[in-house]
């Protein structure tokens, strides 16, 4: 277990004119026992950051500390870190037993019997005790995943690193493994850094989420923080599914005017004072069909999800997505009007993309009345 401090990390690839900056100005502390998820689009530098922490990449600048100890120049094998790779990286010539026991055989002086006992305990914890004498090629994707986890767990490392470990599983198994991983991490209490490009996975799993883009850390916070109070337009756009609706509006006193007849009267115009133009964001789940709303939109497609419908529409040249009740089925080609509450409105500076206003509604509902008294 360790606290990880990353200070001013910079990683460049290539040399001379073909230098590519993969990560820059990266500062982050991962607390002891925390489950932190790095999330961002492909090529945003999240895996590179993870590999720098692992010691698989040399850092160009900056320091990495484990519990205050500088490990920046320490080799991967001396960092006491275990990693689960996207493709599991199981040793094909070894049985499951040997795969899981491999780190102990290399790094400890334990006897074969002791190692076997530990392997069996881990395998039983992961539910793979019957597979111990099989080779990786004889296992399914989910079983291979568990073997890779077992190999990481058996070392009882200071830190777990996981590089998109669920991305090769089918949707159902991914969901099961997601829960199992969380339970496992809580049980073991090992500091964990987890990389994914799937924001739903990030929101569901992380104690905190680190959103990255173009090699830079955009925001670190809990799922609720990055969803409700994104620091910039990128975070607002990346977090949330379906994505937030964004448009550019002209500020006309207290009124915001946008493409396709968009008009919104601000209750608190002081928020947009000093802005000629502003970026407006409303999440699909906050849009409501409202004949008096200021968003006339032409319906293009309605996707039925069973419990709700996704309505896709265009307002001028802007695509609009809304989550509506499952009983409402507007026809394609019809014009509907959306409205929203000001507390659900996001505003971003049109130049810097920094947040000017985020959600302001209630975040903490008293649920005591729903809790059963304990006996």
């Amino acid at each position: 277990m360790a606290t990880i401090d990353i200070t001013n990390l910079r990683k460049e690839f290539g040399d001379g004119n073909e230098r590519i900056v993969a990560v820059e100005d990266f500062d982050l502390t991962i607390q002891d026992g925390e489950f932190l998820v790095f999330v961002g689009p492909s090529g945003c530098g999240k895996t590179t950051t993870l590999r720098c922490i692992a010691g698989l990449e040399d850092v160009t600048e900056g320091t990495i500390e484990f519990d205050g100890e500088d490990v920046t120049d320490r080799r991967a094998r001396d960092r006491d870190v275990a990693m689960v790779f996207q493709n599991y990286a199981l040793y094909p010539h070894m049985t499951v037993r040997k795969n899981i026991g491999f780190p102990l055989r290399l790094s400890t002086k334990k006897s074969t019997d002791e190692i076997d006992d530990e392997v069996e305990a881990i395998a039983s914890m992961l539910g793979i005790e019957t597979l111990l004498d099989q080779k990786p090629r004889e296992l399914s994707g989910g079983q291979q995943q568990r073997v890779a986890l077992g190999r990481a767990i058996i070392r009882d490392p200071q830190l777990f690193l996981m590089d998109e470990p669920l991305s090769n599983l089918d949707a159902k198994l991914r969901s099961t493994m997601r829960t199992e991983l969380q339970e496992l991490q809580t049980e073991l209490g090992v500091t964990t850094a987890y990389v994914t490009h799937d924001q739903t996975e990030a929101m569901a799993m992380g104690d905190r989420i680190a959103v990255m883009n173009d090699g830079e850390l955009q925001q670190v916070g809990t799922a609720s923080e990055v969803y409700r109070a994104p620091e910039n337009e990128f975070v607002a756009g990346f977090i949330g599914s379906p994505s937030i609706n964004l448009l550019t509006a002209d500020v006309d006193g207290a009124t915001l005017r946008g493409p396709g007849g968009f008009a919104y009267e601000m209750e608190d115009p002081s928020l947009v004072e000093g802005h000629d133009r502003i970026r407006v964001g409303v999440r699909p789940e906050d849009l409501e069909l409202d004949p008096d709303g200021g968003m006339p939109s032409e319906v293009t497609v309605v996707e039925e999800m069973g419990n709700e419908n996704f309505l896709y529409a265009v307002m001028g040249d802007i695509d609009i997505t809304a989550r509506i009740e499952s009983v409402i089925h507007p026809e394609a080609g019809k014009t509907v009007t959306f409205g929203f509450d000001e507390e659900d409105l996001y505003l971003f500076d049109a130049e810097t993309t920094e947040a000017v206003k985020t959600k302001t509604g209630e975040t903490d509902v008293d649920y005591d009345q729903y809790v059963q008294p304990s006996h």
Partner: protein
Amino acid sequence: MRSDTKKEGLWKFGAYIFLLTITVLVMIPLYWMIVAATIPQSEFFTWPPRLIPGTQWLANFEALQENVNFLRSMGNSVIIAVSYTALSLVLCSMAGFAFAKYEFRFKEPLFYFILATLVLPIQLLIIPLFLLMVQIGWTNSYLAVILPWAANPLGIFLMRQNMKAIPDSLLESARMDGATEFQLYYKIALPTMLPSLAALAIILFLNQWQAFLYPLVILQDPQMYTIPLALADLVGQQRVYFDQIMVATSLAVTPIFIVFLTMQQYFIKGILSGSVKQ
């Protein structure tokens, strides 16, 4: 549908007949070699040719042993070919691993330089090598035959190409598990490369087993002769000892069969499968 199956069956039948014919054609000289080793030389050129093995094998072998000390030559060949194959496998796989999986200065030029040496004919190298061996006093020694060719460029090329197929994440995973760089090589890379190593072992063994020109220059003492040199001694100006040559060649091919059958078990298809999820 039915006529398609029938057509396919006919094609298959034709293909088997063709392959069987080729196999028989290839086997005829081998069979003749075994028959010829068991009959006196006087019966070699009779017509129709003799097809049933005779009883002269031991007599032919005794004559061969007396003539060229064949067992000694066979021992020399085994020592040289086995040591050469083992040493070369180690050197080629290590070099191939480095070229495939590490970044270092001048890596590409060095690799192409090694490849370029493949086009040099052996005749070009024999005299400089001979002079070198004379200078260091290694003529008539096993080392002189084994060492100069041990870092085989073809072997390095083959190992490099094959080791490129080892996923980087497999090696990185082992590094994270605490493996040293040398442990990556012998605990991860080598076991996953067994089929390629087996194929290369056969090529290297055969190369050295049948090497003639270079050993002929370096090994002048008949006690150090390898099988090809001993066989050459059986072809005199006055007489060719066909019976003894046939005994010698039939014995000489035996280790090749042994090597091939031993290595065959390692030709396991897709040993890397299951290592990484595609």
